């Protein structure tokens, strides 16, 4: 059953085939966060992967910067409905980090400074589809957008791209993270509009 809203449609947003269903284009970079923006100094920053054997592999900021850095051009889609097309990031591929950490289990929980978590299958963090990103449009990543470094998994809704990321723990099963316990989808494919429970 179609419900029409009388007289709606005079003002329309630009549409684009690269826009997933229910999304609109924005030139801004809005913010979705559940609490205060944590202040993290790169001097204290550390990124740690804990694999299924409990082995911890950690990188300091300088060690991360010494790894191969990739330029990433991608569209991003937030569950709150804005999308940005053709954004530019720089970061280290998760393939590099997962290899070094001997990733051995299928599910990852991303942990952030500030305590937030989000779950992502390891497969979605692999094969050139995810990065630890620290630069956006040629500038160091702003704290309110997740700086000094955030996860970048642009083929999923952007809450999966955990801001202020500090590590991954690997698990045999897919457990809900913070957002996923609070109403958002376990996987979050924007093309399938997997927004909510």
């Amino acid at each position: 059953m179609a419900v029409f809203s009388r007289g709606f449609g005079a003002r329309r947003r630009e549409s684009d085939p690269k826009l997933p269903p229910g999304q609109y284009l924005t030139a801004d970079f809005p913010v979705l966060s559940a609490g205060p923006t944590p202040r993290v100094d790169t001097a204290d920053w550390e990124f740690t992967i804990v694999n299924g054997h409990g082995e911890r592999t950690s990188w300091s900021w300088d060690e991360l910067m010494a790894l191969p850095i990739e330029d990433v051009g991608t569209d991003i889609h937030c569950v709150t409905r804005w999308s940005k097309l053709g954004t530019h990031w720089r970061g280290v591929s998760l393939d590099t980090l997962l290899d070094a950490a001997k990733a051995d289990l299928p599910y990852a929980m991303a942990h952030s400074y500030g305590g937030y978590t989000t779950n992502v299958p390891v497969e979605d963090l692999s094969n050139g589809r995810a990065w630890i990103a620290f630069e956006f449009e040629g500038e160091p990543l702003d704290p309110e957008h997740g700086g000094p470094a955030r996860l970048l998994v642009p083929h999923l809704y952007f809450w999966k791209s955990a801001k202020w990321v500090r590590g991954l723990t690997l698990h045999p099963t897919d457990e809900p993270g913070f957002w996923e316990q609070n109403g958002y989808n376990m996987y979050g494919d924007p093309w399938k509009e997997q927004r909510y429970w």
Partner: protein
Amino acid sequence: MASGVSRWLTATVARVAPATPHGRILLLDVPGWPGNRPGQHLDVRLTAEDGYQAERSYSIASSGDGETVELAVDELPDGEVSPYLVEDVQPGDQLEVRGPIGAYFVWRETQDEPVQLIAGGSGVVPLVAIARARLASGNRSPFRMLYSVRSPEDAFYAAELAAIDDPGFRVDWAYTRHAPEAWPHPLGRVTPESVARDTIPAADDPLVYVCGPTGFVEAVSHILVDLGHAPGRIKTERFGGA
């Protein structure tokens, strides 16, 4: 709750009322609405006669059981949905809603801690839902609200907030451009001093809900952390975009 969210429900506009020079309150009749907690939001979907659709999320000013849902919408100059809801839609018109959404930025009657609400502009909407729920319940937890607006006329629910007569619920105002006559404080954005003066102190360990535009929420939450509030005791909801 899990199954209800993905289903679009037909909503009929029951009543519209001007709230501010750029904002309006809408009452929607939504048969099948499952009820909602104070602080939650919903998705609105509008469909034009040629099939063009647009969706946006809005905070809900009402809560509890019942199939009437109250929204308060601020018109964004460059928007496509908010101008329709604020200027065009009339009683009897139909749209679709889906929800309620969000299990984090909510208040529950069983909470027995002090609560500080801090709103910027139309960010007051979910906080009004929380305030109403507290006043309607037997809950006697100390509540305080700080509401920052450009000028008195820009405040949503100004009369309702001014009429709160409960010794455990205090409302404080901050004005950035124009204040009522004889207003004792300087105009401008909230500062560490004004937040310290106008909110429950960190020593009382209140749960703090902050909602407003991103810049406001960023500034306020930093001030709160500097004043000694634990970051985990500060819940934020930001809005931006059109």
